[in-house]
């Protein structure tokens, strides 16, 4: 397949923003264009699965930004996984958003769908980037195009949320991520994603490598490692479809994806293992995942609770990367997939609840299970997947994460993971338990009161994916593992 396809895939959603803007006056047509664009993107990305699994690594260089540094795209397993997730969940979310935005009479829907398309373009751009500079360009593009989505309502609350959002993301990216890239460029003379890393033979010492790795971990603010996590709860002022696709999948996954790419292709697993440069970050990630879970228990606002849950889940992936073992990185890649399906389901449910009964606090959900059985069943399935119990997909990523920890002799991580699972049970299963088993108040609807079908169908699809992926995890693992084919 021609490498030019890489550029086409990145540009496609952004180009289609123009037709979406043009047909903005006819909402049905606009959403049809959006969904079809997404399906076409998914087909385009999926066509690369077989060649990549067979070991092909297509590359396409667009032009040089700086002497010796190109805007260039390349595809490898981690990137393809991330691109597939973004492309698969975009049309579903568009369908869901159509139901949600109309159900809640949201303003400026056309701007909403345009920014959405641009954000997906940025996600694909990151997934396909061949070097750190290209990754950074799309990383910043994603921050900027999601800002109008976060501040969609244009009131004081969203302005304040937007301040925290863009403040933290831009501060970390320009203050830490960019210098980390520049330093890598000066030291290694190369910021291409190279199997085995770029630092071999540069004389970068363990302590300096640790500092640089830290610049990257905290510079990628989208990975939300504490204390750089505050933007994620702040972003919850956005309409729920934005929280669902962008702040449970595209944006946060872009962050942990960057961490994985940098770990595997800039530092190299072996380099990190030998120097131990990433060791401290295992514990920092462990702290984040426990602390975020504890905070989540005390959040009454449903979306905020889910946001803190996301912060915790992201740190699983950062932890997997920082373990500096193949199994850990593989677990990280797998968790990108399983968490994406689980968390988007939870957000879809939160939005469906809001659309149907206009409730956004956990304490208001008592007894709603009978009125919204489909939504809360889907919620339960996704929650179990995130906790990591079979027969849901999340069980596998936790399994591999534990194997990765044993692989590099850090048994304490097992304790952390077990503890985290218990905390997850407390704050996640609390919600369906209230809905199904506690009596509701006077205003709780007695009869069947689900959200519009456009909202409910997508969340049922993603919830079933949580189950299906449990049985099909092996091919994904094998696929990710080909990333290390030439690395070790």
């Amino acid at each position: 397949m021609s490498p030019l396809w890489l550029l086409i895939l990145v540009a496609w959603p952004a180009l289609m923003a123009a037709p979406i803007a043009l047909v903005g006056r006819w909402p049905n047509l606009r959403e049809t264009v959006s969904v079809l664009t997404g399906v076409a993107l998914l087909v385009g990305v999926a066509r690369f699965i077989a060649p990549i699994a067979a070991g092909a690594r297509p590359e396409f260089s667009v032009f040089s930004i700086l002497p010796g540094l190109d805007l260039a795209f390349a595809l490898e397993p981690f990137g393809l996984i991330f691109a597939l997730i973004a492309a698969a969940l975009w049309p579903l979310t568009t369908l869901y958003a159509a139901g949600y935005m109309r159900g809640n009479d949201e303003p400026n829907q056309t701007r909403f769908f345009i920014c959405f398309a641009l954000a997906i373009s940025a996600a694909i751009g990151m997934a396909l980037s061949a070097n750190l500079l290209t990754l950074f360009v799309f990383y910043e593009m994603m921050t900027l195009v999601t800002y109008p989505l976060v501040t969609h309502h244009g009131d004081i609350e969203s302005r304040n949320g937007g301040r925290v959002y863009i403040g933290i993301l831009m501060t970390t990216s320009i203050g830490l991520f960019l210098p980390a890239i520049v330093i890598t460029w000066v030291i290694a003379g190369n910021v291409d994603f190279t199997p085995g890393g770029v630092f071999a033979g540069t004389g970068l010492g363990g302590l300096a490598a640790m500092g640089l790795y830290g610049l990257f971990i905290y510079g990628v603010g989208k990975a939300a490692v504490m204390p750089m996590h505050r933007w994620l709860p702040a972003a919850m002022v956005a309409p729920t479809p934005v929280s669902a696709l962008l702040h449970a999948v595209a944006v946060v996954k872009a962050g942990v994806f960057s961490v994985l790419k940098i770990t595997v292709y800039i530092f190299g697993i072996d380099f990190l293992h030998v120097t131990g440069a990433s060791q401290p970050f295992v514990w920092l990630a462990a702290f984040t995942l426990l602390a975020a879970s504890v905070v989540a228990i005390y959040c009454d606002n449903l979306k905020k609770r889910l946001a803190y849950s996301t912060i915790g889940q992201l740190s699983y992936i950062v932890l997997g990367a920082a373990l500096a073992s193949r199994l850990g990185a593989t677990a990280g890649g797998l968790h990108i997939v399983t968490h994406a399906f689980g968390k988007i389901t939870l957000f879809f449910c939160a939005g469906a609840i809001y659309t149907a009964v206009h409730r956004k606090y956990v304490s208001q959900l008592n007894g709603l299970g009978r009125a919204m059985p489909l939504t809360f069943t889907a919620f339960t399935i996704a929650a179990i997947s995130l906790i990591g119990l079979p027969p849901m997909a999340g069980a596998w990523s936790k399994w591999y994460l534990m194997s990765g920890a044993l692989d590099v002799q850090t048994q304490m991580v097992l304790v952390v993971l077990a503890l985290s699972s218990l905390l997850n049970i407390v704050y996640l299963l609390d919600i369906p338990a209230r809905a199904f088993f506690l009596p509701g108040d006077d205003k709780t609807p007695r009869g069947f009161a689900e959200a519009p079908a456009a909202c409910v169908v997508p969340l049922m699809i993603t919830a079933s994916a949580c189950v299906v992926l449990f049985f099909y995890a092996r091919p994904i693992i094998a696929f990710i593992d080909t990333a290390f084919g030439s690395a070790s």
Partner: protein
Amino acid sequence: MITAFFNQMPVLVVVVPLLAAPLCVLAHRAFAAWLIYCLASWAAFAMAFLLFVEAKIAGQVSYAVGNWAPPFGIELVIDTYSALVLLLVTGVAALTGLYARKSIASEIAIEREYLVFALMLLCLAGLVGITVTGDAFNLFVFLEISSLSSYALIAMGPKRRALLSSFQYLIMGTVGGTFLLIGIGLIFMMTGTLNMADLADRLPEVYATRTVQAGLAFIVVGLSLKAALMPAHIWLPNAYTYAPSAISAFIAATATKVAVYALFRFVFTVFGAGYAFGTLPLGIVLLALAAVSMIAGSLASIFQTDVKRLLAWSSVAQMGYIVAGFALATPAGVSAGLVHLLNHGLIKGALFMAVGAMVWRVRASSINDLAGLGRAMPLTSAAFVVGGLSLIGVPATAGFISKWALMSALFDAQHYGVMALLLVASLLSIIYVGRVIEALYFRPLPDDVSHHKHGEAPLGMQVATWALIAINIVIGVHATPELEAAARAAATLVGGGA
């Protein structure tokens, strides 16, 4: 005929705007004067482009004025360093022409409009003269031409405070000019020549004398005043704030940049990097001042209530970035400083133009007055947003290229502290740009204001603003030609490949 024209181009690029100025006065009508300005500035721009190409091919273009052979006559010398600055100056001047027609008309009485265009041409001639001349005293003369005309231009601002700011600038500018003159006098005393190349040959013999050391000190201080490097910046915020909008855009993008050009022309070409940065501790002094400029300018910017003043303080900070690059005296550093000199001219020009378009509509420039313009002037506001992102240094804008070049040069030269300060200053710029953007998009348009009769800015203003924005983006995504040219220029200044 054509060869003759090409041979005379180095002097024509100065003479055309210089002679067009009295033509403007003779024409007397606002429209005719504007037309003359446009023709002259675009002609100068075209010649600047040809000179840039010629300098690229030949390495250096030399022209003996009046056919008096150097070092006795005045020599004009154009190498890549001067050609790049020349392109910036004439390019911004040409675009300001498109912009100025409606903007000037809204701020200055019609019977005085022709004077504005005449003065702008004089200022342009002076700035162009500084960049092309190879003669130290001639540089001083052109500096005074540009300075005197800019004092008058600033004084024409619509508010009465413009007079005071112009006077303040006049005092500081004259002190700076005098220092420069004293410095040139001192080195002339020791060498008996004013030709820069000749000076560079003769100065090493007398390097050790106090006179030459004092000469360098006077020149550096004098030109730092014109470049508004802290602590000599106090004239700048008022001057930019109260000048007519088109003039703010033109001067902000060119005047201080040309002063920095002249400063490092003297330091590198006349005195030599080894003397200024090896024998004398100029590097550490300039680096310290640059660091103070970056932080203090950015901090001051955050607390401004007037957008033009906010941008002016940000310029003080950005001059720090530029000087920090040059002060490293490494090929990478000089090239990064030059890149930011050009990019910042483009960024600040675009931002002042966007703000000028808003001032055209609301007749005021405080942040509160811009509330809600995001909806009322979508194109202009979008231009401001893109320009602001470039100022912050977001990728795919010219500002990012500057930051990248500066940071890698600073890291390479192991100035980690300055690198950290540069990052802090960039983060501060997020705050001050963000304040304006929030006012544009998150506050409602006031209901009772008469400015509702106006819509978007006129076409000429839009085209000029967006042309600068477009150049910003083109450089941002494909900076290789600019960086290679800057590397060539740096190689001629401090030697070594890059």
